[in-house]
C-alpha cells in the first residue's frame, strides 16, 4: 500500500509537470503580447522592449519555462502583470470563496443525486422512475449560464428571496451553489440509479429481505454502502468539471472567487494568473482522483486484497 501510494504520488507530480508545460507553451504561443498590454497603447517600442526584458519575456522559451519551474518549486507562482501582486497571494485570497461555493455545490448535487437515484431505483420502471430520469437528462442538458439567469430571474428578481449577487452570507451561497449542483445532480442520479439497481439484484439483498429486515434498513445499511464507491470516484472527477463551471457561475453572480480572478486575468492577458489558476485547478483534479483512489480500499475491503 505505501509503495502504491508513492507510485501514485509520483504519477500525479508528473501529470502536474505536464500540465504546467502544456499550459506554458500554449500561453506563450498565443498572438497576444503581454508586454504590449502592460505598456499600453501609446507606449514606444523601447518601453515595450524594456518591459519585456524586465519580465524575462525576451529569454528563449525553454529558459523561461525553467525559470518558472524553479520558482514553482519554491512555491512562487510569479507576479501578476496587471495587479503587480504575487499570484500565490491573489489566489490564496480568492480560494476560500471558491471552496465555499464548491463545497455547497457538491453537497447539493450529491444529496439530490442520492435521493433521486435511490428513489428511481426502488420504483424502477414506474412513473416516478421515468420522471426522475427525464429530470436528470434536463439537468445535464441545461446550459449553466441559463440556469444561473433563470434562478436569478425567479428567486431574486421576481420573488426577492435571495440577493442578486455578492458574497458574505448564507443567502448569497444558495443560488450559485444550486446552479453548480443542478448539472452534477443529473449525472449522480443516473449513476446512483444504475448502481443501486445492480446492488438490489444481489443475493445478499434478497437474503436481507427474506430475514424480514425493513426496506429502509436494507436500502441504507445493506445496499447503499456498496453503491458509494463509484460516487466517491465521481466526486474526484467532478472537481475538474467544477473548476470550469466556477468561471461561468462566478461571472454571473459576481462571486469573488478564483473563477472571477481567472476571468479578469484572461481578459487582460495576465498570463501568470492564468497559469496559476490552471495549475491550482489541475492540482485539485489530481488530488481529487488521488483521494478517491486512496479512500476506495478503506471503504470497500474487496479492493484491499488485490
Amino acid at each position, binding site marked *: 500500500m505505501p509503495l502504491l501510494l508513492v507510485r501514485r504520488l509520483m504519477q500525479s507530480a508528473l501529470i502536474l509537470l*505536464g*500540465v504546467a508545460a502544456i499550459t506554458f507553451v500554449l500561453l506563450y504561443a498565443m498572438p497576444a503580447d503581454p508586454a504590449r498590454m502592460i505598456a499600453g497603447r501609446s507606449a514606444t517600442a523601447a518601453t515595450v522592449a524594456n518591459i519585456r526584458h524586465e519580465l524575462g519575456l525576451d529569454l528563449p522559451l525553454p529558459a523561461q519555462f525553467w525559470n518558472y519551474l524553479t520558482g514553482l518549486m519554491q512555491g512562487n507562482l510569479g507576479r501578476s502583470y496587471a495587479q503587480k501582486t504575487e499570484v500565490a497571494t491573489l489566489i490564496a485570497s480568492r480560494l476560500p470563496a471558491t471552496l465555499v461555493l464548491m463545497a455547497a455545490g457538491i453537497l447539493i448535487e450529491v444529496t439530490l443525486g442520492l435521493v433521486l437515484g435511490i428513489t428511481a431505483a426502488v420504483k424502477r420502471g414506474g412513473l416516478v422512475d421515468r420522471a426522475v430520469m427525464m429530470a436528470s437528462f434536463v439537468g445535464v442538458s*441545461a*446550459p449553466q449560464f441559463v440556469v444561473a439567469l433563470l434562478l436569478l430571474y425567479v428567486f431574486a428578481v421576481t420573488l426577492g428571496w435571495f440577493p442578486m449577487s455578492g458574497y458574505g452570507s448564507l443567502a448569497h451561497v444558495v443560488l450559485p451553489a444550486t446552479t453548480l449542483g443542478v448539472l452534477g445532480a443529473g449525472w449522480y442520479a443516473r449513476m446512483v440509479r444504475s448502481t443501486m439497481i445492480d446492488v438490489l439484484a444481489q443475493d445478499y439483498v434478497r437474503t436481507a429481505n427474506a430475514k424480514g429486515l425493513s426496506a429502509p434498513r436494507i436500502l441504507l445499511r445493506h445496499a447503499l454502502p456498496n453503491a458509494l464507491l463509484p460516487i466517491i470516484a465521481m466526486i474526484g472527477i467532478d472537481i*475538474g*468539471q467544477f473548476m*470550469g463551471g466556477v468561471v461561468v457561475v462566478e461571472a454571473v453572480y459576481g462571486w469573488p472567487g478564483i473563477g472571477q480572478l481567472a476571468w479578469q486575468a*484572461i481578459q487582460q492577458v495576465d498570463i501568470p494568473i492564468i497559469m496559476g489558476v490552471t495549475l491550482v485547478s*489541475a492540482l485539485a483534479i489530481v488530488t481529487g482522483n488521488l483521494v478517491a483512489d486512496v479512500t476506495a480500499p478503506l471503504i470497500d475491503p474487496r479492493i484491499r486484497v488485490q
Partner: protein
Amino acid sequence: MRVLREMLARPSALFGLVVVGVVLLLAVAAPLLAPYSPDEQMFDGLSLEGAPLPPSAQFLLGTDTLGRDLLSRLLFGARTSLLIGLVANGAAVLIGLFVGTMAGYLRGWPGNLLMRFTDLMMAFPALLLAIVLAALLRPSLWIVALVIALVNWVQVARIVFTETRSLVERDFILAERSLGAGHARILVHHILPHLMPAAIVWGTLGIATTVLLEATLSFLGIGVQPPQPSWGNIIFESQSYFQSAPWLVFIPGAVILLTALSFNLLGDALRDILDPTQRGRG
C-alpha cells in the same frame, strides 16, 4: 433498420429524434423560413422608448435590443450553433478514435506515451482550458470549433482505448495475424468495425456537450462574434436586459436546452440499442 425500429419504440428516443430532425430542418431552411433578415435593425422593432419588443403577431418571438427579429436570429443562429456542433464534435471523435486505437493497438512505449498524454489531458480543467484558448486566440467560428475539438476528444480516446485493448487480445485477431494479415488490414477490417457503435454513441452524445460548450463560450463573449448570430451570443448580447426583457434570454436558453436534451436522449437510446451489455438498464 433494427436500430430505427427500436428507437421508434421508445418515447424518449422518439422525442429526441423528432426534435433533432426539426432543428436540423429549421437550420437548413432558415433563409426560407425567417420572416426578416437576421441583421436588419428595424425601425418599428423597438418601442418608442427604445426598448426591445415582447413577442407579438408582427414579431413572433419579440425583438432584441437593436430592434432585430429574435425568431430570425434564432433560425440563423441554429446554423452557426449546429455547424460548430457537428464539425467540432466530428473532429473530436476522429481524433479520439485515432489516438485511442493507436494507444490500444501499439505495444510498448508509443502506446504508453499516447495513453499518458490522454491521462494528462484528463487532468486539464476542460472548460477552463477552452475559455483560455478561445479568449487568447482571435475568436471566430472555426477557432471555436477547433478549441472545442481540442478539448473534447479525450473522453472518446479513453473509451476507444479500453475497447481496442480488449479486442487485441481476442482470438479472431490472433487468428487473423497468424494468417499473415498486416496491421492496416487488422485495424481497418477487424478493429474499426467493432469501435463503430461507441463512435456513433459518443458522436451523438458529444453534440450535446459541444452545443453547450459553444453556447457557454459565446455567452462569455469569446465564442462566435456578433453580428453573426449563434444561440450563445444572442444571450450574450442581451444578458444585461434579462430583468426587463426576459424572453431575449430564456427563449434562446430553452432552444439550447431542448437541442442538447434531444441529442442526449438520442445518444442514450443508441447506447442501449447498440451496446447489448447496457441493455435492460434504461
